[in-house]
């Protein structure tokens, strides 16, 4: 039983950043902007917020720690993501640049910027930015002591896990039940049609990309906090994995959450199998386990990409909006 709880707790560490970042990607792509820059936005969001935590924790006259600090850091991460996304948005919406290229540029810029800044302004002048993890919740009061459900969902956890679910619900609601969501989706499917009824395609696309920046930035912080003691200018490719989750999830929140859960669970088993006697004693080489998440993704993608799902991608994603084009 202990093993199941453990795997579940670890799954959330993988799943939550993937979920949040993929939802960010969803807003951007649903508005018609291909967002390959998720990795870079995650990285910069993580960098700025970890740097912020580092500075606050080492400042002598500031007594701020624990969850208030984490929530502030999330805001910092979101703000950084928004600023980064502005670059992407400006290039690809206002200037009609190729969306993939401006995304790649951000991905290349991000680690270099993080290393450079950390080395110049950091306390230790190294590329690693350290932080004290004072954010872990051993057990949520009351809820954590419920049998079965407690250890599964409410022990050894972070407030970010619940924030992730909140973001999921709000995103799904915003996308399907609000005027904003309808207009956003319209801009991703047929921007000229949206424009013809008075929706500003540029504004909607800016909104989509900036939202994606905010969520990706937060996702970066959420990935780093439980899994490291410092930020080392990398988010280990999770931005690209989130992109895969987005596609796997067919650009729909209710499927993205399942895709993120699927991927997170496989990752947790793949990485944690060596501490599970039942799996370890099978004698299967560790390399096999490391392949599992990726092979499974390929297989599931191949199966689900047939028929209706193939057309799930927003029709106008990747095309700069041209008013004159009908």
């Amino acid at each position: 039983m202990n093993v199941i709880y453990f795997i579940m707790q670890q799954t959330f560490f993988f799943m939550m950043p993937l979920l949040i970042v993929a939802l960010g990607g969803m807003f951007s792509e649903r508005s018609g902007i291909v967002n390959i820059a998720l990795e870079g936005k995650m990285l910069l969001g993580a960098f700025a917020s970890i740097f912020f935590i580092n500075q606050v924790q080492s400042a002598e006259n500031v007594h701020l720690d624990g969850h208030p600090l984490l929530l502030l850091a999330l805001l910092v991460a979101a703000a950084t993501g928004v600023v980064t996304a502005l670059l992407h948005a400006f290039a690809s919406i206002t200037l009609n640049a190729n969306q993939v290229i401006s995304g790649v540029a951000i991905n290349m810029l991000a680690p270099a910027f993080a290393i450079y800044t950390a080395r110049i302004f950091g306390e230790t002048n190294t590329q690693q930015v350290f932080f004290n993890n004072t954010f872990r919740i051993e057990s949520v009061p009351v809820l954590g002591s419920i049998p079965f459900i407690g250890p599964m969902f409410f022990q050894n956890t972070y407030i970010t896990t619940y924030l992730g679910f909140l973001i999921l619900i709000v995103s799904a609601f915003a996308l399907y039940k609000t005027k904003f969501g309808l207009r956003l989706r319209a801009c991703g499917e047929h921007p000229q049609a949206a424009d013809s009824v008075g929706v500003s395609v540029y504004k909607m696309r800016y909104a989509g990309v900036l939202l994606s920046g905010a969520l990706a930035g937060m996702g970066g912080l959420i990935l780093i906090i439980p899994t490291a003691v410092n930020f080392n200018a990398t988010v280990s490719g999770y931005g690209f994995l989130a992109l895969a989750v987005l596609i796997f999830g067919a650009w729909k929140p209710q499927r993205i959450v399942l895709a993120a859960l699927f991927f997170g669970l496989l990752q947790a088993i793949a990485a944690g199998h060596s501490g599970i006697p039942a799996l370890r004693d099978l004698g299967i080489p560790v390399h096999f386990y490391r392949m599992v998440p990726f092979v499974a993704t390929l297989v599931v993608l191949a199966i689900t990409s047939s028929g209706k799902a193939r057309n799930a991608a927003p029709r106008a994603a990747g095309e700069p909006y041209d008013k004159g084009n009908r």
Partner: protein
Amino acid sequence: MKKFIALLMVMVLAGALIACAGNDDTTTTDTVVEADTDDDAGADDAQADDTDAVVEQDDSGDWDGIPIALVTDYGTIDDGSFNQGSWEGVVAYAEENGIPHQYIQPAEKTDAGYLDAIVLAIEGGAQIVVTPGFLFEVSVGEAQSMFPDVKFVLIDGRPDIGEDAPYIADNTVAVLYAEEESGFLAGYAAVMEGHTSLGFIGGIAVPAVVRFGTGFVEGAEYAAAELGLAEGEITINYAYAGTFGPSPEVQTMAASWYNEGVEVIFAAAGGAGFSVFAAAEAAGALAIGVDIDQAGASDTIITSALKGLEASVYSILSDFFAGNFPGGTEKIFDASLNGVGLPMETSRFENFTQAQYDDIFQRLANGEVEVSTEVGPEAHLNLNLSIVEVVNIG
């Protein structure tokens, strides 16, 4: 909209400037101060006379150029690892003796780039060039024959001249470390401390990491025998992470071990070690660091298996300036040369004492205890163990 964006950009820039200003008085970039010279000479277009010009500022007029140079691998001088440890050795010796010294950072991470940097150092007057890390094997292999009058100190590697066997010319010394002894001390200390369930996570099964691992296992075995434990009382989970970079997967692997009951994990895995420390913090368990004293990285680190970079560089430099450069040899820094050890001052042991450490260190140093130096990904399975049970993962 455009105005709004422009305004935002300006604000960001202004913010960055303010951040600069605020920090300037607190951060002195010590690298530049220590370097006695232009620290940016590594750029391709840097001229040799650039460095010459700086020497004139130096008080000791006796030197023609800068006689001690260190070329960093792609990392930087404050990487908390090889470059930093070696550079500290250079600085310690050079400042003690008033000798100008500098470091050069290669412009690119290729053998040619390293060689360029070495040439630049020599044009700057270097008589002895320190190159930290096995990445320099090829470039030093070439440089040693190009510059027979210059001495080369290759840390943790042997010059590679494209043949099957490495060739150490008379003007080169290959500095190696007895990682197995360092690992041995860590394993010994962990068991003496009272731990029975241990773990080892290596980065990639390269010889240095393998020696750390096998030494760790043997140290645990040795301590277990001294304590008179029964067969199987000590278990060691043993795995290679397949990476030297930090990753959530390594964190989960370590967390799963801690969850299973492992008490302390020895992480000989570079940056991936930080993922192990994160797992240790979450599990309230312990870890052992590697290469340099990592005690500051996390409160969970009970000790670190050291390589004495600073001591070895210092020792070679004093040999050189005393006229006995050990050229053409492989110099293995082991316990007898103070090349390995545990940082007892910063260690967080509760039971393992300084006296016990001195005792085992002495026995390693005088050869009473011998540690296997076999390398290879399966080396840990071929050890002669009677008490320790190695749980191989891979």
